[in-house]
């Protein structure tokens, strides 16, 4: 294929680097520096997609971020990405893209039948039609709408690309590298401020790349290049292209998405695809420019109708003619600039100007070049289906209400200019209340809300001289406040052509007897008639009109449609535009990849993974791991072909008969130190702590102020003013914050310090009838007899030269000890225990066996202390002191908490002694009662009792105290099970607790 619409010279593309690419399976060529859009246009391809609702043919409308039509599916680096704007996607060798929202092909699209059914698809059609019958919604309507909706197709594969996040701080952040951005950045940088200048396009310079101006005796483009070169060389300046600042958040936090790899065929090794920058700026200069707005006329969505500024950009930046017989339809001087460029490249345009007799330097230049100009003329409708073939034009009366006789003239594109809309999104996101500026028929930022200053076109200033003057000044003054430097920058001399006032005209009336669709929102197919319907049906608020018609709700977020929509509403409602108001601008300004927002926090990286110092040993010994909060813990140690059930049963049984060892490093540990430590613990825990002697441990329960159990654990008095507190693995962080809260805010008079020591100690629980024998061999020089180290005793000992702490505490209900050494010796300790324990048939056990052992003993854990239970519910009321006050005590007097039939922990055994009861099952009296079957309680934890060799569960049951011996049903609709059960004591094994004291 030849690039038939590429002019011979000119443009900023690199003609020495020819690139091949595929669109809809067909091969084309372009040049380095092209976008997919410019390369397709160079090849004469104007049909790129189908519209959202009516599946009408779609071409190119803009040349950048405002593009509503040219949304494609991109295939790159072995991945596919939907909703890519062809006007933003840079060309690379081997690029592949496809049209979206059409089937079987963009040329023949079956969905286009909607175009002929459009009389049946007005605004609100879906709301009105798919209301009833209700049952149809799930089966018929929803699947149908889902299939018809949406543009591209998201990949269901794992995204292999990498995305990064970066945090940055600066004095001045500048959004946009057009004339105002460059001037502001330069003045600030010269004052020594730390500056970040961001440009969303690959090329810096903004409007200077296409405008015919002269700054300091250079062309605008050359001046911009010089400024960028100088800025890049300054150490206090970061200059970023392909970087879109898309959100202005609280306290001057802005977020920018940098496309690192999208313009390359493959992402380089170790490079991210995109990088999200969180930038905290002291001052923000918004130099985001403006977007040309269309004029509304019949069939204005036909491929070949585009913004006049886009046509100019394709020509000046990419050397591409969007047509050879252009018609320029304008209400201001910008259309003339485009026409002049056409003329300079040997193409004869015709200008239709809605104004009667405009006069300016630009118009004079167009006249001198011999361009054919028709004043008080409009395009009534474009003709042609997949491409503009001609235009119906007519003269228009001075009051703009009457069209003259319709004439048809040949053309192959219609370049339209309805004046300029400042890009106020970032200012508005910062909280700035925008105001309507009559002279330009658009909203501009009002008083700054945060530290944002809008410059140039983004502030409604369209004269270059004025823009440069105010931007240099703003950059200089704002940076001076921060750096206290003042290096005045000389403002360069500017030569620009003066333009005349635009015409307040935005919509061409329908010719008599014609019913052309006149589109406002090109991506969501919202036409003038849809807005009219919405208003006729009583929608008044612009926010409601937006949602009812979907105006401005497509992926382009109405960048080209919002103001025309407002004009229409204000005209019908007979209100002025500011009274109608505009809809809220919310971030992101432009669609951002979900991957970029997520960053590196995918899969295992969503949270840190913490491993105990004994982890490698577990791995070598076939441990199967389970996530316990952020920790990885061995769930069981697999032997041969064992499954979870078999292995955990073996491990638990071995604890009951011999001895087992469990890695308990993950338990939360907090050092509590200070002269008032005992008093503090006495207030934190429900039981008494003042009399605990040195060298003793005590089990404690702590409540929240609302009386609910927060956590439990043992705390040991290491020395006079030093306590070692343990918490559950899951609650460790919350408990520390809780303690700090009371020490810092409630009882600052207490002289106590708390610090987390979780990671300082490695822990091993040695449990089972033979644990003392093993301990004696581990610590031959210590007295670990029942008298020397009684239940809840504590001692310090020497483990082959390593200082160890021994606590005689038990979670398994067996005779048991916990040994702690500093983490670095964790693995040493573990290997010694295994080595010496061999003669006692020691086996390591995982969390599954640990659960089994505690469940059949009736010891509570997280599944019972679930944030809904008070001490009584978990049979811990014996630990609640009646004498002293403590956190949460007053709440326990609540009538609900003291009710006779209050819920309480019980044991549950299936009648058949065979069927395991799923955790979460509900306990009910009558299995056949109609739904919702009144719930009496729920199963909190289940195990296979190794003591009795049958299933056993714990439950929290209403009136549990008086339910022992009752027969109920455990129902699990999820597992489709109804199990007859008997309620027993929660202390299923060793109810008197003799073993731990033996």
């Amino acid at each position: 294929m030849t690039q038939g619409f590429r002019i011979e010279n000119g443009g900023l593309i690199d003609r020495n680097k020819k690139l091949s690419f595929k669109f809809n399976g067909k091969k084309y060529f372009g040049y380095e520096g092209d976008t997919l859009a410019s390369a397709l246009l160079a090849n004469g391809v104007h049909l790129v997609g189908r519209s959202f609702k009516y599946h009408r043919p779609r071409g190119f409308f803009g040349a950048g971020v405002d593009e509503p039509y040219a949304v494609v599916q991109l295939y790159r680096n072995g991945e596919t990405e939907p909703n890519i704007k062809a006007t933003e996607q840079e060309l690379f060798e081997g690029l592949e893209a496809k049209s979206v929202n059409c089937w079987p092909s963009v040329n023949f699209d079956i969905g286009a039948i909607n175009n002929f059914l459009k009389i049946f698809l007005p605004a609100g059609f879906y709301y009105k039609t798919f209301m009833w019958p209700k049952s149809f919604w799930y089966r018929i309507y929803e699947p149908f709408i889902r299939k018809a909706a949406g543009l591209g197709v998201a990949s269901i594969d794992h995204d292999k690309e990498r995305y990064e996040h970066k945090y940055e701080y600066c004095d001045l952040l500048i959004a946009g590298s057009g004339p105002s951005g460059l001037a502001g950045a330069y003045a600030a940088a010269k004052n020594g401020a730390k500056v970040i200048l961001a440009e969303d396009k690959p090329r810096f310079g903004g409007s200077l790349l296409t405008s015919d101006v002269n700054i300091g005796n250079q062309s605008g483009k050359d001046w911009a290049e010089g400024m960028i070169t100088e800025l890049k060389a300054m150490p206090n300046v970061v200059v970023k292209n392909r970087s879109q600042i898309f959100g202005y958040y609280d306290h001057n936090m802005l977020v920018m998405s940098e496309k690192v790899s999208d313009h390359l065929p493959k992402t380089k090794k170790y490079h991210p695809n995109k990088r999200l920058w969180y930038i905290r700026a002291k001052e923000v200069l918004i130099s985001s420019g403006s977007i040309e707005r269309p004029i509304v006329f019949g069939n204005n969505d036909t491929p070949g109708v585009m913004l006049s500024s886009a046509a100019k950009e394709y020509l000046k930046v990419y050397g591409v003619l969007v047509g050879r017989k252009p018609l320029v339809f304008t209400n201001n001087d910008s259309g003339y600039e485009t026409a002049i460029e056409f003329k300079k490249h040997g193409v004869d345009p015709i200008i239709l100007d809605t104004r009667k007799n405009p006069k300016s330097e630009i118009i004079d230049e167009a006249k001198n070049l011999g361009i054919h100009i028709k004043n008080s003329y409009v395009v009534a409708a474009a003709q042609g289906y997949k491409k503009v073939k001609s235009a119906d034009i007519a003269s228009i009366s001075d009051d703009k209400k009457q069209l003259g006789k319709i004439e048809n003239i040949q053309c192959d594109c219609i370049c339209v200019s309805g004046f300029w809309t400042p890009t106020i999104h970032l200012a508005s996101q910062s909280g700035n209340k925008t105001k309507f500026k009559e002279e330009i028929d658009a909203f501009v930022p009002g008083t700054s809300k945060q530290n944002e200053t809008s410059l140039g076109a983004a502030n409604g200033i369209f004269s270059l001289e004025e823009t440069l003057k105010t931007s240099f000044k703003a950059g200089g003054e704002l940076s001076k406040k921060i750096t206290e430097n003042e290096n005045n920058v000389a403002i360069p001399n500017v030569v620009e052509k003066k333009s005349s006032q635009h015409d307040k005209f935005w919509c061409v009336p329908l010719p008599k007897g014609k019913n052309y669709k006149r589109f406002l929102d090109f991506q969501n197919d919202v036409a003038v008639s849809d807005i009219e319907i919405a208003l006729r049906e009583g929608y008044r608020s612009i926010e409601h009109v937006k949602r009812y018609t979907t105006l401005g709700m497509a992926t382009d977020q109405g960048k080209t449609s919002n103001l025309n929509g407002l004009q229409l509403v204000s005209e019908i409602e007979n209100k002025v535009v500011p009274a109608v108001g505009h809809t809220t601008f919310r971030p992101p300004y432009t669609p951002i990849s979900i991957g970029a927002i997520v960053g590196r926090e995918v899969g295992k990286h969503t949270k840190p993974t913490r491993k105990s110092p004994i982890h490698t040993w577990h791995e070598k010994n076939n441990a199967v791991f389970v996530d316990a909060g952020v920790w990885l813990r061995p769930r069981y140690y697999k032997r041969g072909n064992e499954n979870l059930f078999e292995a955990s049963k073996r491990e638990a049984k071995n604890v009951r008969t011999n001895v087992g060892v469990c890695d308990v490093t993950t338990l939360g540990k907090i050092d509590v130190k200070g002269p008032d430590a005992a008093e503090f613990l006495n207030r934190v825990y429900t039981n008494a702590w003042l009399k605990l002697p040195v060298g003793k441990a005590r089990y404690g329960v702590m409540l929240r102020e609302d009386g609910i159990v927060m956590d439990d654990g043992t705390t040991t008095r290491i020395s006079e003013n030093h306590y070692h507190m343990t918490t559950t693995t899951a609650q460790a962080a919350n408990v520390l914050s809780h303690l700090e809260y009371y020490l810092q805010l409630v009882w600052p008079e207490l002289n106590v310090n708390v610090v987390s020591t979780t990671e300082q100690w490695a822990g091993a629980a040695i449990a089972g009838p033979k644990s003392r024998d093993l301990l004696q061999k581990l610590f031959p020089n210590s007295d670990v007899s029942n008298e020397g180290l009684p239940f809840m005793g504590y001692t310090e000992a020497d483990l082959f030269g390593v200082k160890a702490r021994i606590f005689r505490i038990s979670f398994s209900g067996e005779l048991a000890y916990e040994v702690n050494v500093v983490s670095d010796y964790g693995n040493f300790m573990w290997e010694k225990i295994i080595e010496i324990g061999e003669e006692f048939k020691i086996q390591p056990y995982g969390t599954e066996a640990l659960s089994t052992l505690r469940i059949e003993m009736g010891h509570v854990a997280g599944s019972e202390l679930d944030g809904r239970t008070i001490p009584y519910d978990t049979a811990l009321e014996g630990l609640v002191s009646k004498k002293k006050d403590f956190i949460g005590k007053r709440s326990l007097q609540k009538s609900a908490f003291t009710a006779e039939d209050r819920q309480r922990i019980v044991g549950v055994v299936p009648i058949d002694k065979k069927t395991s009861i799923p955790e979460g099952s509900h306990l009910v009296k009558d299995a056949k009662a109609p739904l919702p079957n009144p719930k009496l309680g729920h199963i909190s934890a289940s195990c296979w009792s190794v003591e009795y060799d049958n299933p056993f569960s714990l439950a929290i049951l209403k009136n549990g105290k008086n339910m022992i011996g009752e027969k109920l049903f455990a129902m699990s609709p999820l597992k489709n099970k109804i199990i007859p059960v008997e309620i027993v004591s929660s202390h299923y094994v060793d109810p008197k607790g003799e073993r731990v004291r033996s």
Partner: protein
Amino acid sequence: MLYINCPHCGMRSQNEFSYGGDASVKRPSLNKEVSDQEWDNFVYNRKSLRGKHLELWQHISGCRQWIKVERDTSTHEIFRTFKADEEVAK
């Protein structure tokens, strides 16, 4: 994301802090008889203010100190911050 001036560490981003609720709530003294209403006011009843609000934050990923922050709940403007033991003049 808020930018909070920790009185101990200086300006830090919100993601280093965790929120701790209304700072004007005073816990009744230990061992003091309190009515149900008084206790409920302490534990549960909070005003959902629009405007200036004195609230607690903990600098959990920093100095771990609880601090008081005077913030506008509708605009997120932060006026002043205080150490835990600082008295806050109205």
